[in-house]
């Protein structure tokens, strides 16, 4: 990374995916949801970068890594405004936004301590009630976990 004309530049990638507009405070959640700690490709992270929209944002650049929609949409839970740039030959060939899926399986924790899913070995399951301000309805206890209380397993 070098400083040039007061702008922060992160080295460009030849082929891969850039995930931008991640709120800085959820960067590590995104890393864990996408299992990036287990990828052996070159990855560059930037965090606490200034953003007009998010205050402080984070960015992830992944060389030679591409995601299927189903996989990448998992991060919509914590970073609903995230944007993806697909890079081929140093050029952005496609831009994508993430979409909150209709059902969330095995990513989030139910906020209800009396829910069976927090007391037995159960893969959590939620129906997404609202996409903008994410609201998850637990398949088991039927209680709602809101955006503020979403905890990633």
């Amino acid at each position, binding site marked *: 990374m070098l400083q040039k004309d007061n702008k922060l530049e992160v080295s460009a990638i030849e082929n891969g995916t850039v995930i931008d507009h991640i709120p800085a405070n959820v960067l590590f959640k995104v890393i864990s949801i996408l299992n990036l700690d287990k990828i052996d490709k070159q990855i560059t992270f930037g965090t606490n970068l200034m953003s007009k929209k998010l205050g402080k944002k984070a960015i992830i650049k992944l060389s030679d890594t591409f995601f299927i929609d189903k996989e990448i949409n998992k991060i919509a839970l914590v970073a609903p405004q995230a944007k993806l740039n697909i890079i081929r030959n140093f050029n952005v060939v496609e831009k994508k936004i993430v979409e909150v899926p209709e059902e969330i399986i095995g990513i989030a924790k139910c906020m*209800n301590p*009396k*829910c*069976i*899913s927090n*007391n*037995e*070995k*159960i893969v959590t399951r939620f129906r997404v009630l609202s996409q903008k301000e994410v609201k998850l309805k*637990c*398949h*088991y*206890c*039927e*209680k*709602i976990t809101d955006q503020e209380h979403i905890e990633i397993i």
Partner: protein
Amino acid sequence: MMKNKSLVSITDYTKEEYLRILALADEYENQPNTSLMKDKVVATLFFEPSTRTRLSFESAVLKLGGKVIGFSDSNSSSVTKGETLYDTIKIVSNYCDLIVMRHPLEGAARFASEITSVPVINAGDGANQHPTQTLLDLYSISKTQGTLNNLTILMVGDLKYGRTVHSLLMAMSQFQTTFHFISPDELKMPEEYKYYLHSLGLKYTEQKDFSTNVNEADIIYMTRVQKERFSDPIEYERTKNAYILKNKMLDGTKDTMKVLHPLPRVNEIDQDVDANPKAYYFTQALNGVYVRQAIIASILGLS
């Protein structure tokens, strides 16, 4: 149609299925003893005690000629040895044709229904669902009013935490019901339910005390206002007496009006109401047996 279909949440059944259960319950009320369930075994697994609900279910099974196995609280099962719910359900499934379960954790019955091929009836999972209570409430309403359509229901007391009022609201909202909610500020009907009624175009009002709309009601549904629900004990002392139903308050009400209560009652219905023909809560409990007979027979495909 309902054969082998677990009943976990009141929304698992359609309006047509509610009506079918009620019709069948009516048949069992007129002719209670049959030997439909001759070779059937029902397991009643009560991981927390609820004597009234358990006896009602067991009475329903015995009246249909079936047999009952089970336990009445988790101290008398291997839960105390640390067995998971998963294992208990897997094992018990080998011994019975139907499981009736009550569990302190929310979602326990849904989980159980997904790990066994035996149908499961939820007899209460924490503060979540208790669908057979709702069906017996519907039966009681239908029986006393002759219909479920276009009625006015007054719900009184703890409307925030009371699962019976929430489930009843969901079920009755399919029959053009008008609702009046009477509760202290701290225990008001949650927004999501009011929003739901609004989205269906149904009318409701909210009040802090009994007023003239008592006289419009076809059904007064009373619930218990529990002290532990209040963040401020002084507020509880100030409000507790506002939600006690007394006999003289029923003077101007409709002749056909009935007072319902899921029981147990503490003091929210004065004992002087009991002798009034409008008091229906004890018969309501009896109706529970007929309705549970109907649910069990439907699920086992015997009806």
